[in-house]
């Protein structure tokens, strides 16, 4: 068993290299990269200044072509003077937290953002709390609602309540969270019907000042006020799958022999269902926890975009749109590592909870 997991961990290395290499190559061939953007900016600047000061004494002549020297400098600044495999190697050496010198371990360096001129890691650290906050609240709430609902549906299988709640669950399944966000904003956030909730954002302006000033009650109220709509959208996504999974898994267990035995030896229905049945039927739900981190951190950029929440997801999205490669690569590194480790953690949890399962 240990050998199996060690092998799985080792297999992460080639997979990780494959993912980052492929993404790196794709990004190299996209037009409108940082070099072109810089050239554009300089040209625009030259044209503007040429219009303003009519003397026209600027060094770029008519401003149509940049001198070779300047181009070379721009390329060098962004590191685009070297072939892409050299750049990939440099990038990889920076990211991998190992080095040949004495401590042999170093903090991974994801580079500096072109747009913000800040280390990528700092950008991430600033936004982690926001995404984690929404992710965790949504996650906890959906588990708190879905598990009891699934259990209740399984116990009352075939009843009117079961049919009704199935209907609601499928309605929830058929609408994407972010699309529901748009209509929620129009209904409750805009001026159309009720102006109950804010139009978006993580916190109102001046929140941290108020917190420092000790107005905790106001702060918490404001925070909750900004949380309601996005969290609804986060929950809608996992609501249906979780409930149905819980229900089916409990139903399956209730038909097994050990439940029959439990009933036969005279245990009460509650004890049988909640002590014997529920425990075993939580296994498939628990293994989903392996991907918890990945869900929480990567967030949903669509929901963040709809609600203008400046989280990790939105950062990744804008980095791609604006060709901010270091940030985009950083996103890919984090997302892929979380996913790869999440897979293994899921399997490990599976083994821990249910010792009968053997991988080989």
């Amino acid at each position, binding site marked *: 068993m240990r050998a199996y997991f060690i092998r799985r961990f080792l*297999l992460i290395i*080639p*997979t990780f290299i*494959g*993912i980052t290499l*492929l*993404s790196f190559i*794709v*990004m190299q*061939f*996209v*037009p*409108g990269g940082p070099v072109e953007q810089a050239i554009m900016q300089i040209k625009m600047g030259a044209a503007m200044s040429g219009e303003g000061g009519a003397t026209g004494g600027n060094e770029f002549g008519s401003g149509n072509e940049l001198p070779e020297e300047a181009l070379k400098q721009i390329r060098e600044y962004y590191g685009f003077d070297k072939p892409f495999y050299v750049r990939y190697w440099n990038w990889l050496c920076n990211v991998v937290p190992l080095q040949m010198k004495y401590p042999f371990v170093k903090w991974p360096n994801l580079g500096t953002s072109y747009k913000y001129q800040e280390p990528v890691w700092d950008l991430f650290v600033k936004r982690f709390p926001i995404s984690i906050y929404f992710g965790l609240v949504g996650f906890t709430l959906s588990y708190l609602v879905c598990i009891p609902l699934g259990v209740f549906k399984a116990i009352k*299988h075939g009843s009117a309540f079961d049919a009704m709640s199935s209907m609601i669950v*499928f*309605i929830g*399944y*058929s*609408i*994407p969270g*972010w*699309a*529901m966000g*748009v*209509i929620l*904003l*129009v*209904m409750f*956030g*805009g*001026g*159309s*019907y009720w102006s109950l909730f804010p139009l978006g954002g993580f916190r109102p302006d001046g929140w941290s000042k108020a917190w420092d000033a000790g107005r905790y009650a106001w702060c918490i109220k404001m925070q909750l006020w900004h949380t309601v709509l996005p969290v609804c959208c986060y929950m809608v996504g996992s609501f249906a799958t979780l409930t149905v999974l819980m229900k*089916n898994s409990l*139903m*399956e267990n*209730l*038909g097994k022999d050990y*439940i*029959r035995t439990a*009933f036969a030896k005279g245990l009460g*229905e509650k004890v049988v269902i909640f002590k014997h049945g529920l425990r075993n039927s939580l296994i498939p739900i628990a293994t989903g926890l392996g991907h918890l981190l990945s869900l929480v951190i990567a967030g949903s*950029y*669509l929901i963040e*975009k*709809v609600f203008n929440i400046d989280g990790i997801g939105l950062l*990744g*999205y804008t980095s*791609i*749109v604006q060709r901010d490669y270091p940030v*985009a690569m950083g*996103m*890919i590194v984090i*997302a*892929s590592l979380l*996913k*790869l480790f999440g897979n293994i953690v899921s399997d490990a949890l599976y083994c821990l909870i249910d010792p009968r399962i053997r991988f080989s």
Partner: protein
Amino acid sequence: MPYLLKLLIVLTFIIKMLQLLITSPLIAIVVLVVVVGMWKLFKPTVDSPIFQKRVRKFKRLKRGYFSFVFIVTLYILTFLLPFLVTDRALVVYYEKDVNGKMVGEYYFPCVKMYQGKFFNLDGRDKYKSPNYRNLKIKWEKEKSKNWVMLPIYPFSPNELLLLELSNETGKKVKAVKANTALSPEKKTAMLKVLEANRFPPTKPNFKSNILGTDDRGRDVFARLIYGFQISISFALMVTTITYIFGIFIGSLLGYYGGKFDLIMQRFVEIWSTIPFLYTIIIISSILVPNFWLLIGIMCLFKWMGMTYYIRAEFLREKAKDYVSAAISIGASDAKIIFKHILPNALTPVISFAPFSIVANISALVSLDFLGFGLPAPTPSWGELLVQGKANMLSPWLAGAPLGAMFITLMLVTFIGEAVREAFDPKEYSRLR
């Protein structure tokens, strides 16, 4: 007359399809391959009695079955949209002056373009396709023998109605101003309401645009219904192609196993960890995406899901006796994979298909919402949602696409639920 019309509709439909296939050989090849591939793949499964039994079970599940019938009918009807929802008239009867004698003839603008001067129109309409709605009103007012037969819903998805909206409001404003019976306060209030509707987005109005217009003055209902056709076609194509590809790869992985399986699994893992939407954003910022390119990109990144299921099914089926029997009589690998094992491994494919369609429709809408989907004038739900978010005071803009999406996806989900129950039944035994 109706008989003629029917014939006309069928003929133009066939001609249009043929035209499409001839002008773009690539599409023709793709369609051909998909149809033949599906037929070959599913023929043995469909013929088996157990499949027939499951179909009968599916038909008994009323909610799913009716959703299925409804959506399929609606989708087939959308191919007649050029005759149902369009600004071109179906039939025009027009009398022309031929050597001093008035000769009446029938014209079919829905099939052939006519310039305005053909119907003796002047000014703005002289060289472009006439506005048949106005033509109808004009001829009715003149009480002339000419007449226009408009389609059921006489607006096109890409038609700009700015001028018409403004003119209509202008007429109403004039009428209110001329009305002396009204008190001045009431007049100003009424004028205010009217003026608000002069410029798009305008409110839903049961007499003309039943779901209102969007912020560029295009009819929302027309865009919605054309968007439905595009979404469903897109989801069907993507689901079919990814399934064929996924089934193929998955069956190879499961059947051969070993080193091949290990290496290919890593490849699949790499491919599926690359953030799909990032890649699609990157690709669509290089190339201007069209319908087929978008299908291609989606297929490139969505085929992995099915491989896992098919691989697992193959691993299970491979150990069974009938496979050993097939091997021992010397059947070729291809024959064992496609003739023997695959028909038994297709259950997950069939029961997951509706849910994949739901996912693909949502994916297209979200791409359109981000602005990386179909190019600009194409009617799409995601684009309407963008407008809905930008114009919060016009709730019909977000409500209409969301309602459409909600109904469509819910119906497909119902189908999926019924299909799963019919094809992958879980018998639960209860003790108490």
